[in-house]
């Protein structure tokens, strides 16, 4: 499995972890009647906090991923070439992580899918607002659609890395 495929899986896991944590926290509070479901201030604060947590978690997980991957590549190269050249080993790690035109094309295609998911989420939220007028539900659908969009983007990235990609 390539570095890019592993990175897509890590992004997927991050989105699932953060969305899962948000779900457990927010709905735990509502279920236990600690806050009212229509308390917009609670939803706004919770979402803002979880956006911050999401950014921090993503950075930490990506950092850990890079460190672990660098160690794995160094160990692999060392066992393959014996003691070898330290500088050469460093360049192997770098070239395994290089981003080129194929990665950019895959990223563009995955971003398109993410955007479509977010638009579907937005329209669904508006439709639900007509059927069931609740700002909390609308906000949660919007918030969830960003994470699901990110998740869908990572799935598409993984798909294109596995199957291959063409222009057009």
């Amino acid at each position: 499995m390539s570095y890019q495929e592993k990175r897509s899986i890590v992004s997927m896991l991050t989105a699932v972890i953060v969305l899962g944590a948000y779900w457990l926290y927010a709905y735990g509070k509502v279920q236990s009647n600690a806050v009212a479901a229509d308390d917009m201030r609670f939803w706004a604060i919770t979402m803002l906090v979880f956006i911050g947590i999401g950014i921090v978690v993503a950075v930490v997980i990506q950092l850990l991923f890079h460190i672990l991957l660098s160690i794995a590549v160094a160990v692999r190269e060392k066992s393959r070439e014996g003691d070898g050249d330290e500088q050469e080993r460093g360049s192997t790690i770098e070239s395994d992580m290089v981003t080129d035109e194929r990665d950019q094309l895959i990223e563009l295609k995955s971003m398109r899918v993410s955007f479509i998911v977010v638009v579907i989420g937005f329209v669904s939220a508006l439709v639900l607002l007509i059927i069931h007028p609740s700002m909390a539900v609308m906000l949660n659908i919007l918030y969830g659609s960003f994470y699901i969009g990110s998740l869908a983007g990572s799935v598409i990235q993984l798909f294109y890395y596995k199957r291959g990609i063409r222009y057009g």
Partner: protein
Amino acid sequence: MAKKLHITNNIRKLRFSANEMTQQQLADKVGASRQTIIAIEAGKYAPSLELAFKIADAFDVHIGDVFDYEGRAGGK
């Protein structure tokens, strides 16, 4: 709508002829990742014109000697 072309290539053969150049060495020469070279060789990715020219330059051959497409009259 025009039919999509299936691009073929001789990179594996050219690498072998070029003193058994590795995929990593080719990737370093053209500024791409090894995964991209693997994908091109396997026909899973058709590179941009720029990268295609760089690959041809790396082997010191004409671009037509590296890439072709299936169904071309007189194709290799």
